[in-house]
């Protein structure tokens, strides 16, 4: 992210140390993850020790220190989705994508993540592709959904 962009965010939160979580959230929103150099810059400007920023960034699940794919695939592993077969859907996604939870495919297209209850339990098991919700997922439907995304992102 541009240093100017970070400056704007810092200014919005009045360089308040207590707003560090919100600051990191905004920085991440712009680029899907938190690059090292951005964290160094924030640490210098606030100023708070870099170790403290890393502690926050690694404590909260919402933050990623690694780049994430163009499409983030989140599998709901909430209890309701679990009892309706979410683990089988997840296994199939891992198989199809050839990656584990928290990883990105080599072509940078997909990242696989899990989430606990999206509040759409009636449609469980749920997989979210980017912002699109796919309900009543089955292992077989995983394959066709991924094919569709691969196709649209090439176009």
């Amino acid at each position: 992210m541009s240093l100017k962009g970070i400056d704007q965010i810092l200014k919005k939160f009045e360089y308040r140390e207590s707003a560090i979580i919100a600051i990191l959230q905004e920085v991440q929103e712009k680029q899907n993850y938190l690059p090292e150099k951005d964290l160094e810059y924030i640490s210098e400007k606030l100023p708070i020790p870099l170790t403290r920023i890393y502690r926050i960034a690694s404590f909260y699940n919402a933050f990623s220190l690694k780049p994430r794919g163009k499409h983030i695939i989140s599998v709901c592993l909430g209890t309701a989705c679990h009892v309706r077969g979410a683990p089988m859907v997840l296994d199939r996604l891992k198989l199809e994508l050839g990656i584990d939870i928290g990883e990105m495919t080599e072509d940078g297209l997909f990242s696989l993540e899990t989430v606990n209850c999206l509040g759409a339990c009636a449609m469980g098991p749920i997989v979210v592709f980017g912002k699109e919700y796919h309900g009543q997922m089955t292992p077989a439907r995983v394959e066709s959904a991924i094919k569709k995304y691969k196709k649209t992102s090439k176009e």
Partner: protein
Amino acid sequence: MKKISSLQELDKARQEILDRIDPEKPVVTITSGTSARAYGSEKVIDTLRKELKKQGLTGKIDIRITGGQGFDEREPLVMVSPQDILYQQVKPADIADIVSETLIGNKVVDRLLYKDAETGETVLHKMDIPFYKAQSPYIFGNNSKIDPTSLDDYIAIGGYSALAKVLRENSPEEVVEMIKKSGLRGRGGGGFPTGRKWESCRNAPGKKHYVICNADEGDPGAYMDRGLLEGNPHSVLEGMMIGAYAIGSDEGYVYVRYEYPLASENVERAIEQLRTYGLLGKNILGTHFNFDITVSRGGGAFICGESTALMASLEGKAGEPRAKHIHTVESGLWDQPTDLNNVETWANVPLIINKGVDWYTSIGTEGSKGTKIFSLVGKVKNTGLVEVPMGITIREVVENIGGGISGNGKLKAVQTGGPSGGAIPTSLIDMPIDYDRLTEVGSMMGSGGMIVMDDKTCMVDIAKYFMNFLKDESCGKCTTCREGTRRMYEVLNAITEGKGKEGDIELLEDLSWIVAEGSLCALGQTAPNPVLSTIKYFRDEYEAHIKEKRCPAGVCKALITYSIDEAKCTGCGVCKTVCPADAITGKKKELHTIDPDTCIRCGACLAACNFDAVKVV
């Protein structure tokens, strides 16, 4: 927008809003909370707008977009008034018919009505549907009456009259007394008496007092708080304002779960509206009451729902709980007296003030007053959010409201209390829902998750599921919790993989004791509950896994095999095409077979077979 700067002006503003409403004018109400959106409600709304324009009806018919109304199984819901018709599972393609048949022709579109699965009869009105009939929707029911983005809508249904009432008639001490007498207990899990908490906070000395709304909603499989914040944010904010007045606080926070963008958006907008109207800020409604609220988004950590961890997170730190020998009501956020309550707890406050303590205490049981919102999910026909009076039995909720088990399974257990709770077996489901009774049987009220499980749910797998969740979410501060939950997970995992040993159940019980006794916060203290309750009520399932290397529910991969039923297979070949492991062979129109050594037990064929021919044993 005009400021409302006195109690009289609020009454006047309400009257003006009501005067503007034409009771004869048709209104089409469409649900569009997170779950309705997942079903495509936004496209339905878009289509409706276009269709009305096409028919020259723009302006002649009002559209009201609401949050969720509970019946998530049938989203999106479309209601037409004044006829009071409910259409369910509406698709964009249905809109033309609704407009031409119902809005223009005053006729009913039969195919969109709710149909009783047993009698086949259609139901016209929302409140006649069994799902709604048995509920007492005093709090959640208002979602259907308002557009959550409109403060006017909330004022029209009597919003902020409870705040006005206490500012006009009651001293802060009297408000505390009322909440104490109402018997309201915290809806966030612990069930602590709210009035007592307010009183301690009010009496604690400090430079400043804070009030916080806990909207972190971490129970995986529960979304009551999201439903309220998305659908009626002002009811929660009004509760907070009354609480702040009673406690003597001028600053509040709403801590919203990271995964709830729409809820954050709706509360933030609601707060902005209140500031514009002058209902937040200095000298609210011309009194000496000053108060403002800030929204803070969580970072996706379950532990931040715990009170001390939440406060640490608000201060910009890692969310680790601290010991509570000094209570947060005395020293909480920035070491000042702080009152923290759950979303639903706050939403109960205006109701108590408006309807009175006597009315409120007439609902519920001796020790549990009022209603509770549950998220009724899992293997149940009618999934959704339901609001029921305390004291109703679990069976009534699952069977009358939930419509029983989905598919052809049999009810096995109902899990309440999320990762801190336990599974309640069928033999106990005639028990009334009440804080103390649920604790007695080894579960707890929790925040309101109610997960229905059938005979295809493996209870050892469920215990493993919760332990996996807890080991991931343990903040790591206490060794017993960090290491203990991990060890318990490993033992459970081994059992589900067929590597269980004699003595594992006793080992789990030993570890449970250590984790519960040695941990600082309730995450660790209650972590063993899902394991202990499943051992208590479903010990035979554990034993089948350990001794016979068998998973009776057919869930644990290492212990099951897939095969095809000769009598049912039609040779259609669908299973073969979906199998990712090429484990299925067979010619078209002939019996197919699965090679157990190649099969990865992914379940694809099971889900794909239209003839129920795939067997799991």
